[in-house]
């Protein structure tokens, strides 16, 4: 119907309707899959992260599958005992715990000398699970805590990589850190030690710090301070954080990258972090008194001055600002110098402790503090360890530096600084390879990611005619080759990591295994046999004298009082025990009587060839004893040629020492290998020199099945002396 109204005088537009035929092609299967993956990229991301989480947990379970769910090594036994105490007695008794079972006449204030983070974490998990009536034994929680936190570390590393660069770097970094051997060595199932949660807390704090600097928000800075508090509760290595973050701030200031975000992030984190860190009794007032924390305070004050100067400069002309600045600078700098000089002169600011000084000067410990030098983990790192612990990450690490410099930002400067400092410290001590592992993962991920990025572009079909990409000969083939080569490198990395985990880092140390003649597996469970003998056959108040390595295990498994343990807080007490072991039986008896010793425990590996026994540690006992008592001379225990021998050529001081007699009592009649004389020591590979002697002041109480653990009872004095 035509509209004849007068209002509408416009001609009706004719619209041409076209019928367009839609071509329905069937999309090929590969294209369908690619479309699905690119449109659901978050599905791919989350499923990869879940896989990484599962792998990080399961690769650490070798020793649980091969042996049993048992706590490994030495330090974890102390942590386990403390966790049991916390769960049974409550948090108040734990914080105020004075332990009379260790360091016999002295005791140890555990509440004030331990980092409670690990125990509290386990206790919280235990209480939460028990609240839901999922009754899991505390031992199993302790054994599996480290793998759980390793999985969490992988997730936090993903967030860290994502914050500094993007998701691709984050994913690669998470995948690397899930399996890298440098981290696995301290976080297998059963290794219930501070490092298990400390690395998680470390990466968490660094992630929150970079997030705070990037956003300039006080909320993220407060979260960073809370993360730092968890790190302080977890491990003594928190000093690394409180020195790296101020270093980062200084470098940003020097490179002209000051911004309000940096000021907000650092000042908020410093104030809240320092106040929170002093809540831990072990840290106490160190954050405002010790030299290790002064750098953070100094940068804090300097940043205030810098910010104030900037603000005043924004309000004045340059001439006016210069006059004000000149006077102010002289005044402030003289004030600061006087305050600093007064602090150091009066001793209010304490100098570096030996532990940290030995990090800066690696030769310090060998000359001055033998106990620190004697720990095998504190030796300098060999070149082979870098490849063993990092494999291909060690090679892509410098590539990561290059790409960080090319794509410079506040976050990438932080990565560079963290990388440089951790390389130096990991060279000082093998133990600090642990600090290097996370940053090696992130930087290698940066290197790999940017390399892959550059070449993957050529493999996309829509880019085949793209003229914006750099053009060179055979680019498609070269790109394909590079991508395939890197994939093969990843495969080799995975094979290496799994092999290393299985062979090197999954031994419980408390249980040894070996292959017998026909390939059958022999288990040496002597340690637990010896400690359980002590637990069941000695009276409750018995005091056991052994070298400090075994202190924690004796306390935890045998539940008896020990003289010295792995805490090594009292050097002269350890030196006294060392002197007892190094003296003749008669002199040692005097020392043992003065310390109320009832039993002596030694570890002897000569029967089965166990190389970490007390005779091999003996020289360290002599050195430590000699550091406090000048009568004990290390040279007396060597032959005139300067060799350490236990056969008939050995020095007589050595052959008559208490340690020698305790280890080799009754050994002279044992034939250990065919074609060898009786009394052949399978570790030193010699026939021992002093056989068939009698003990006058001790009597043999127990020797375990393979002679690993030998326990002696100290005889009471004669009625008529």
């Amino acid at each position, binding site marked *: 119907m035509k509209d004849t109204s007068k209002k509408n005088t416009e001609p009706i537009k004719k619209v041409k309707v076209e019928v367009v035929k839609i071509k329905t092609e069937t999309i090929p299967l590969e294209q369908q899959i690619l479309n699905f993956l690119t449109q659901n990229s978050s599905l791919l991301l989350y499923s990869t992260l879940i896989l990484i989480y599962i792998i990080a947990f399961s690769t650490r379970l070798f020793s649980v599958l091969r042996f049993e769910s048992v706590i490994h090594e030495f330090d974890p036994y102390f942590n386990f005992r403390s966790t049991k105490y916390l769960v049974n007695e409550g948090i108040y008794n734990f914080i105020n715990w004075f332990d009379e079972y260790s360091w016999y006449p002295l005791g140890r204030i555990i509440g004030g000398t331990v980092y409670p983070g690990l125990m509290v974490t386990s206790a919280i998990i235990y209480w939460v699970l028990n609240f839901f009536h999922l009754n899991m034994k505390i031992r199993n929680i302790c054994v599996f805590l480290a793998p759980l936190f390793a999985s969490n570390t992988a997730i936090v590393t993903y967030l860290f990589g994502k914050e500094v660069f993007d998701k691709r770097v984050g994913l690669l970094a998470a995948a690397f850190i899930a399996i890298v051997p440098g981290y696995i060595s301290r976080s297998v199932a059963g290794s219930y030690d501070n490092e298990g949660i400390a690395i998680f807390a470390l990466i968490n704090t660094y992630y929150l710090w970079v997030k705070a600097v990037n956003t300039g928000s*006080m909320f993220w800075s407060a979260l960073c301070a809370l993360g730092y508090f968890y790190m302080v509760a977890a491990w003594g290595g928190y000093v690394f954080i409180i020195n790296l973050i101020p270093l980062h701030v200084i470098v940003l200031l020097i490179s002209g990258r000051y911004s309000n975000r940096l000021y*907000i992030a650092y000042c908020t984190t410093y*104030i809240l972090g320092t106040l929170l860190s002093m809540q831990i009794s072990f840290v106490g007032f160190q954050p405002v008194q010790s030299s290790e924390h002064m750098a953070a305070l100094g940068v804090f004050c300097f940043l205030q001055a810098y910010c104030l100067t900037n603000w005043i400069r924004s309000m004045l002309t340059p001439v006016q600002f210069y006059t004000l600045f000149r006077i102010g600078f002289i005044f402030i700098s003289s004030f600061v110098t006087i305050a600093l000089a007064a602090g150091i002169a009066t001793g209010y600011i304490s100098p570096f402790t030996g532990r940290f000084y030995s990090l800066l000067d690696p030769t310090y410990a060998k000359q001055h503090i033998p106990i620190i030098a004697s720990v095998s983990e504190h030796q300098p790192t060999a070149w082979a360890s870098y490849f063993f612990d990092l494999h291909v990450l060690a090679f892509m690490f410098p590539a990561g530096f290059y790409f960080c410099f090319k794509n410079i930002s506040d976050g990438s400067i932080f990565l560079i600084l963290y990388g440089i400092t951790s390389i130096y410290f990991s060279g000082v001590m093998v133990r600090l390879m642990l600090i290097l592992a996370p940053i090696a993962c992130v930087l290698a991920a940066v290197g790999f990611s940017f390399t892959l990025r550059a070449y993957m572009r050529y493999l996309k079909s829509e880019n085949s005619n793209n003229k914006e990409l750099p053009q060179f000969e055979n680019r498609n083939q070269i790109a394909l080759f590079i991508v395939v080569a890197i994939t093969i490198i990843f495969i080799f990395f995975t094979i290496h990591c799994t092999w290393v985990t299985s062979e090197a880092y999954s031994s419980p140390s408390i249980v040894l295994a070996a292959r017998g003649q026909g390939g059958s597996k022999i288990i040496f469970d002597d340690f637990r046999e010896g400690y359980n003998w002590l637990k069941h056959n000695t009276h409750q108040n018995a005091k056991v004298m052994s070298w400090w390595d075994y202190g924690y295990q004796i306390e935890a498994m045998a539940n008896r009082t020990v003289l010295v343990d792995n805490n090594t807080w009292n050097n002269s007490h350890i030196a006294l025990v060392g002197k007892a072991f190094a003296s003749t039986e008669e002199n040692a008896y005097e020392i043992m009587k003065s310390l109320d010793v009832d039993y002596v425990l030694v570890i002897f590996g000569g029967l089965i060839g166990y190389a970490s026994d007390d005779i091999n540690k003996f020289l360290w006992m002599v050195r430590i004893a000699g550091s406090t008592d000048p009568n004990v001379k290390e040279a007396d225990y060597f032959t005139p040629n300067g060799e350490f021998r236990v056969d008939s050529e050995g020095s007589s001081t050595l052959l008559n020492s208490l340690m020698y007699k305790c280890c080799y009592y009754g050994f002279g009649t044992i034939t250990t290998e065919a074609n060898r004389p009786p009394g052949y020591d399978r570790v030193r590979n010699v026939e021992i020199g002093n056989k068939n002697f009698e003990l006058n002041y001790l009597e043999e109480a127990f020797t375990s099945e393979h002679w690993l653990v030998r326990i002696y009872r100290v005889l009471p004095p004669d009625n008529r002396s």
Partner: protein
Amino acid sequence: MSELKAVLRSLYLEYKNQTTSQLKLLDFFFIFSLIVALVQFAYMIVFGTFPFNSFLSGFFTAIGEAIFTVSLRMQLKRDNTAVRPIGDFIFCNLVLFLAAFNFMG
């Protein structure tokens, strides 16, 4: 000396021009926190450090408030109407006072 006075005077005038009343309130609170910190420090010097943890918690609270105020001022100067920085300020204060009360003893 006279040129120093002139510089300070021009600084003061420029400051008066630049700041809104909202920011001036924050500045007064900042000066107040600093004075509280100074009073605590002077007390510590005169009467000794005996409960050192109490001194530290009070001193850190005052300095912390000053820092938070400055941070809030920086964020509000950029954008007057923003509400998020105020929320962050409250959260940081919560954490600060929680730690300080636990530490005071």
